[in-house]
């Protein structure tokens, strides 16, 4: 077999050595450039700048050190196909992983904060001094135990926690520092940490906390378009629907079944008591007509939750022996018990109500 095909040009390409030196100097220059640019923050462009410089360096190595510039088309095709298929690999994988992952937290956030009115959230996003002040109080009561009184992440609870609670003074943020992101963190809590979900607080309270926490942090960012989208705050809010945990029909049915308990016979005697009317007006809706306790469906709370009041029958409570304690509880309410404060009774009414309540408890 004398000849195989088409090798017309049977000599090696010889590159002048000074080209190698020049290319090397260019490569060093680009390396310095990429280190220098890394000292500045271009935000999203960091990646683009760094990759552009790296690609330029790569092109120099490929073209001159590897001499692909002077090589035959087949070897050039090899390099091109490698780049092409790596691009396919990255882009198509990204079409799932990145799209899916942007979608995923969004779905969970929306599910968790579901009932929060985006219009209200949108309004409260803007910081006011009033909110910061309100937030400060809420912070002291709810957060300082772990995050520390000054926000240093060094509250007494912190010792026992792993991972450690956020230090607001460091300026480092894990789940973003924009108002909506912090709001989301407060609403959902952080799985696997001591940070519970505080979705029980009202939107106002949560935003008050957000603004207070931001006020003490040295570094924070504003809501990006992405944040707003993730929280469902982009676009029009007219489509807003409160979250439905339960099929509407079932909920309505539950609510229709508010316990209608007849007054027991042995309590009937109190019905002519002077305090009975006041009690029926102000208390019976939750505590039952005879103080027997009831399941109360709190309407207007999303999701609808049921509260239970305890039976007063045989109750051992401080107020039973102490009218001033009774007055204090009724007028100021019980923090944390869902008991609203009811005031504006005159002294006669107070004594009537107290005596009736004592009677219901069997005294």
């Amino acid at each position: 077999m004398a000849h195989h095909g088409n090798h017309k040009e049977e000599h090696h390409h010889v590159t002048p050595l000074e080209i190698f030196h020049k290319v090397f100097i260019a490569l060093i220059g680009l390396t310095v450039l990429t280190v220098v640019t890394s000292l500045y923050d271009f935000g999203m462009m960091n990646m683009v700048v760094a990759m552009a410089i790296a690609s330029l360096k790569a092109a120099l190595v490929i073209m001159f050190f590897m001499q692909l510039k002077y090589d035959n088309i087949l070897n050039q095709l090899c390099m091109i196909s490698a780049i092409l298929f790596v691009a396919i690999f990255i882009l198509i994988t990204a079409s799932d992983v990145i799209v899916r992952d942007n979608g995923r937290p969004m779905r969970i956030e929306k599910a968790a904060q579901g009932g929060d009115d985006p219009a209200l959230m949108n309004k409260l996003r803007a910081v006011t001094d009033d909110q910061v002040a309100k937030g400060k109080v809420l912070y002291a009561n709810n957060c300082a135990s772990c995050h520390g009184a000054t926000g240093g992440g060094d509250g007494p609870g912190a010792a026992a926690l792993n991972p450690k609670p956020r230090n607001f003074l460091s300026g480092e943020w894990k789940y973003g520092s924009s108002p909506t992101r912090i709001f989301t963190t407060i609403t959902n809590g952080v799985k696997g940490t001591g940070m519970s979900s505080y979705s029980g607080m009202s939107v106002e309270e949560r935003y008050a906390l957000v603004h207070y926490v931001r006020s003490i942090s040295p570094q924070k960012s504003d809501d990006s378009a992405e944040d707003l989208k993730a929280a469902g705050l982009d676009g029009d809010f007219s489509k807003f629907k409160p979250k439905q945990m339960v099929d509407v029909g079932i909920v309505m049915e539950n609510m229709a079944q508010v316990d209608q308990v007849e007054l027991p016979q042995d309590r009937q005697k109190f019905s002519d008591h002077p305090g009975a009317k006041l009690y029926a007006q102000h208390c019976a809706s939750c505590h039952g007509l005879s103080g027997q306790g009831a399941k109360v469906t709190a309407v207007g709370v999303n999701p609808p939750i049921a509260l239970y009041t305890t039976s007063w029958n045989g109750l051992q409570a401080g107020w039973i022996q102490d009218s001033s304690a009774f007055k204090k509880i009724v007028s100021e309410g019980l923090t944390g018990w869902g008991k609203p404060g009811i005031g504006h009774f005159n002294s006669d009414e107070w004594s009537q109500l107290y005596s009736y309540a004592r009677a219901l408890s069997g005294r």
Partner: protein
Amino acid sequence: MSGHHEVHYVEGTKHAIPHHFNSGYHEFDASKMGMWVFLVNEILLFSALFVAYAMFRAKDPVMFHEASHQLNKWMGGLNTIVLLFSSLTMALSVGYLQRNNTKRASQMLILTFLCAATFMVVKYFEYSHKFHAGLLTAKFYTFEGISAGHPGLFFSLYFMMTGLHGLHVLIGMGVIAWVWWRTRRGDFNEHYFTPVEVTALYWHLVDLVWIFLFPLLYLIG
């Protein structure tokens, strides 16, 4: 067709041209293409790690940013320059062989080998620092200085990428030592230097991978 027992040598060397090739250049050409196809395969091999990097970075850029601060960018930069220089010396050694300057070529190969060794020594210091600090792969990660996300993932990527790259450097050192030995023995001249040429292609690819690893891991995180 001449008898198949006849053996042809490349001009001025003891290299016998295998019977299925027409000429020394034919063999060189085929070998070079073989190396290029192999490099395609190498690029795709590394690409899986780059894809993993891209996906995890897109998921949690804050963590990548924080975690990358734990890498020493001056050591990374030093290694970059060392590798670029070794690429230069490797290219020069091929250039000198093409000019039949075997002596300079073998000097350049020694320089390349030393650069590779320097790279690995720097890498050793970097790794031992990571081991002591508990900056290990996700499951064994114990460092406490990074609060965001799963920083173990970044260091898993770091070790996988630099580890695979380091493995390539070690293999490259072996091959470079071998071609240096053959160069010194006088196996190569301007007509036959295929092993050095394909080694050079491989070595440039090692450099190429590092050109991307350096900014991705050390600079922008």
